[in-house]
């Protein structure tokens, strides 16, 4: 079983892949409508919104948690150095 390189979700069936394409290393939730992978800023915003919507976290806490959890994933290695967000915290 593959884990999505961009969010860590296990991908177990064709419907987990963008446009059902099982050769991809990222999941449907990390893809844009055309099947390409989201950029870091897009994923960061999506993860932050997900934490707020489903768990009710404070926006700043969610943003900080999203940065830390994304930093663990293969797709975003080294990204923080270039992006090291002042992030308004």
């Amino acid at each position, binding site marked *: 079983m593959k884990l999505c390189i961009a969010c*860590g*979700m*296990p991908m*177990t*069936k064709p419907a987990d892949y963008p446009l059902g394409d099982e050769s991809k290393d990222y999941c449907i939730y990390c893809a844009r409508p055309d099947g390409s992978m989201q950029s870091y800023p897009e994923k960061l915003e999506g993860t932050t919104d*997900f*934490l*707020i*919507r*489903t*768990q*009710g976290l404070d926006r700043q806490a969610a943003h900080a*948690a999203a940065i*830390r*959890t994304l930093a*663990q994933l293969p797709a975003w290695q080294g990204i923080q150095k270039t992006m090291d967000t002042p992030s308004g915290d």
Partner: protein
Amino acid sequence: MKKTVRELQKEQTKELLLKTAYEVFSKKGIMNTRVSDIAQAAGVSHGTIFVHFRSLEAMIEEVVALYGQKIAMRTHVLAQSSGSLSDLLHAHLGGIMEFEPFYTRLVIENRLLPPGARDSWISIQSAVSFHFSLVYEREFGHNDRSGILLHMLFNMWMGLVHYYLQNGDLFAPEGNVIGRYQDILVDSYLKLLKGGRAEK
């Protein structure tokens, strides 16, 4: 590249240490455990532990990350086949049950743990909230008359489950909170949810 015997042995020792630490943490509590407890339980010297881990903090972070991932994965696998919210809540508890003593320690101690472990905690909850939101929206989404926000429903469920685990010594002194309360927790929560909807 092929691994040398020495590298393989090193990996095996590390696996043993992670598993032993998990067991000791489950039994004694995470912050209550000293390096010497783990060394003794694993039958290795104090020094061996520091060959594999920078510090006890680093070890705690790795154990929580590893087992947090296992818990999240188990939840994910069980949740995949959940058609209804009832199935999903049972799947959630089923995932916890396999790791109950350790998960309970996380419930009680997670805010005191090193930052990396706190992040693993968020990841476990995200695996659940992800499926919760999918199933909830499928089952109630178009017809939600409760007026209660998704995250409040999720947090009410989590609050209930974690309250029982946190006080497990009072609810199930034999140490089997989930096994004993699984049905009544799920049924009561769903009744509350559906009753609230019907009244409006």
